[in-house]
């Protein structure tokens, strides 16, 4: 029969899930260094800073000019994870933002108005708001607003959405032409001449990081998985965005890969005994990050893959930046190789591969109220995975940023019911469907009642 989870109340009694090796320390050092550079920029105007979005960021270009990126999304998530997002959100709502506008934007704008930063360090006013518009239409609004409120010039780097099976040459040419425009602007901002070799070097660093990051993600195919590809992946994503195109990023990922590989060699998983393997779709509930993790830990459930960890870039299926053609490589990354610019059906396919190739028992869809990019149509996704593919699927609703939308008790009940049913199916030997060829089987039928 299904083993009940540990009945403890406090975190101390829950199975410990997160891995703390050198990775954590190094990650902290890098992120601190990044915030210090931003503060330096705020205080002295050097290095120059440019706001950018995580998805499909062309950080290689900034790196080649020694420009430090400001990621408003990172500010927002840091505020939420530190339980400091509500006040700026309320402030933004007073400014006229609607209760259902993306709360990432509200928290970021509200904090800017209130002059609050998540780390307490100073944030520079960027020399440029560079909106790398990949998919999410909110990005365009967010950066228009930042540009207006900070009186910062705005450049809209318009990336055609992935609407064909492979990128079109006209799409690549359009992005490349805009990148050349941005080079001119960066030359003006920094007073430096563009150096193609520095750009190639940055692109080459990215390529190395991507190779290691991708191998790390594939390590989670091992049973047991050496790290959690949703919760722990977020730790690795900080350096991935801020230092990918820099030798410091390369060093970091070398250590991370080595450490995690050693865990695999020792057959060491996230838990002493891994019970469930799930794929998670959707951004995390940052204001309740810890609680949500504990809910899964109490069932010794590990996420082996997640779509959220591909918002910045999708590398585990083979894409690498190419230093021989640096502009085209950056364009392709923006166009095709990040989750946000790919269409829903491409996302379904990505998840399907995760379930199969990462040997998952089920799928958790986290509907995020703020984020229509992710959540509009997720009911159809659930229908596809449960009915068409017969994959046990749990559907939860909360928010990425706004703490008012997390019903802790209700979410916990649903998580518990889901794993109880999964455990029951495993214990009774009923095949839990995770193959695309299989239609909704009896176990999936049973599980559907809790989806």
């Amino acid at each position, binding site marked *: 029969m299904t083993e009940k989870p540990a009945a403890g109340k406090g975190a101390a009694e829950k199975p410990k899930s997160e891995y703390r090796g050198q990775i954590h320390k190094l990650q902290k050092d890098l992120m601190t260094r990044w915030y210090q550079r931003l503060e330096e920029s705020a205080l002295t105007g050097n290095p120059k800073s440019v706001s950018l979005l995580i998805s499909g960021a062309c950080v290689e270009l900034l790196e080649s000019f020694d420009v430090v990126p400001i990621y408003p999304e990172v500010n927002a998530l840091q505020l939420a994870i530190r339980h400091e997002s509500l006040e700026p959100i309320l402030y933004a709502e007073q*400014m*006229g*933002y*609607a209760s*259902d*506008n*993306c709360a990432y*934007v509200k928290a970021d704008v509200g904090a800017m108005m209130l002059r609050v930063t998540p780390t307490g360090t100073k944030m520079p006013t960027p020399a440029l708001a560079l909106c790398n*518009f990949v*998919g*999410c*239409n*909110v990005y*365009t*609004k967010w950066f*228009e*607003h930042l540009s*207006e409120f900070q009186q910062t010039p*705005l450049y*809209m*780097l*318009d990336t*055609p*959405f992935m*609407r*064909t099976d492979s990128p*079109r040459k*006209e*799409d690549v*040419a*359009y992005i490349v*032409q*805009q990148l050349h*425009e941005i080079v001119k602007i960066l030359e003006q901002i920094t007073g430096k001449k563009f150096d193609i070799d520095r750009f190639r070097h940055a692109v080459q660093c990215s390529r190395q990081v991507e190779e290691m990051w991708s191998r790390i993600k594939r390590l989670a195919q091992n049973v047991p998985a050496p790290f959690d590809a949703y919760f722990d992946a977020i730790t690795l994503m900080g350096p991935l965005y801020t230092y990918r195109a820099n030798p410091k990023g390369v060093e970091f990922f070398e250590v991370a890969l080595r450490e995690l590989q050693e865990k695999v060699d020792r057959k060491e998983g996230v838990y002493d005994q891994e019970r469930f393997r799930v794929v998670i779709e959707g951004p995390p509930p940052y204001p309740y990050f810890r609680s949500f993790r504990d809910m899964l830990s109490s069932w010794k459930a590990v996420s082996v893959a997640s779509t959220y960890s591909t918002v910045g870039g999708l590398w585990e299926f083979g894409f690498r930046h190419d230093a021989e053609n640096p502009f085209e490589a950056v364009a392709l990354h923006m166009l095709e190789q990040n989750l946000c610019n790919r*269409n*829903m*059906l491409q996302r*379904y396919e990505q998840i399907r591969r995760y379930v199969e190739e990462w040997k998952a028992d089920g799928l958790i869809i986290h*509907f995020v*109220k703020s984020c*229509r*990019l992710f*959540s*509009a*149509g*997720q*009911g*159809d996704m659930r*229908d*596809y995975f449960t009915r068409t593919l017969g994959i046990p699927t749990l559907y939860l*609703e909360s928010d990425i940023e706004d703490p008012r939308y997390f019903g802790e008790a209700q979410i916990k009940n649903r998580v518990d019911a889901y794993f109880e049913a999964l455990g029951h199916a495993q214990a009774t030997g009923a095949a839990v469907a995770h193959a695309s060829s299989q239609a909704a089987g009896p176990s999936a039928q049973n599980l559907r009642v809790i989806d």
Partner: protein
Amino acid sequence: MTLATIDSTFERCTEIIGDLNFPEVRRWKDEHPGGKAVAHFPVYAPVELIHACGILPVTLNGAGDRLDIQHADARFGSFICSIVKTTLEMGMTDHLAIIDGMLFSTICDSARNLCYVLKRNYPHMYLDFMHLPHNPMPGSGVVPFLAAEYKRIQDELEKLSGKKATDEGLRKSIALYNENRSLLRDLYALRAEKPEVLRTSELYALMRAGNFMPVETHNLWLVEALGELRGRTGKPRDSIRVVVEGSFCEQPPLDLIRIIEDAGCYVVDDDFIVGRRWFTEDVPETGDPLTALADSYVNRSVYSSVRHDARKPRQKELVKKVHARNARAVIMLIAKFCEPALFDYVLFKRELEAQGIPHLLLEFEEKAFTFERLRTEVETFVESLLFE
């Protein structure tokens, strides 16, 4: 056309827009055996391309209060605007069976995802997504990009219809739609000048009926209406001149527009069905037609909440519009959960306040049918201005 006939035209238009069975599309299909219809949302779509391929373009307006949402909620959940859900519901209840394809574009995340949800559920329908660009700056390479995108769409449409669009045919289509837009511009000018002669609810019904009929027919209706209206007189009402902004995509129910008028407003400009009036002047009818269309999209078009154009900050454009139409106030009439409009509201509000232009924010749903609360809000707003 006599005054009696113009009133009956408005009535006929009201019937057409209230009928979920697309009577005019059916009529056209009966007259054109094998003919196809391709639908799009009320925002911009290159109708000339569709037309030149021998296909009937249809602008969707959701289902209003005439269809219960029974299936679409499970697919799209909460916090999604009505038009996305009612469109899907129409698909799931066979109301779109008359439509052979749908074209979506980069207007917002919800509509984009709808395109792909439809694609999965209706694999036999032609469903495509256009990237309408957000970087119109010279030097970005935007016009050749967009011309190539139109060419891609044209190729797909030709496959659907089995007919090739020639350059000459395209130019003819452009001319027909130029005429349509120019007539609508005239009607808008007439209404702004003599709002007592042409009610917004009438103009709106006349324009919206064009969503479902061939442009050739619509042009005839507009010409007749214009001619007739020039001779119409009306008794000026004690109303304030307002610009309505924010309902460019999901459309407000006709009754709601009437209520705004009855509560004491002359609507002297609006952004209803913005795609029908996208260009500020004619698209060139000479030269390469795809380039003409692309260049017009980029350089001869209206501002809108569903596109970025650094050269035309929307909040400044709205203020210009208010002054150009000599309006006293703005009603921000925004579809519930319409993210682009709700985000823009922040900048609109700020600018209107800075300019001392009063405004009222109203949220609506196309599927709503009682508007008492909204009526009271408009009345209160109008009173506050009259007794200022």
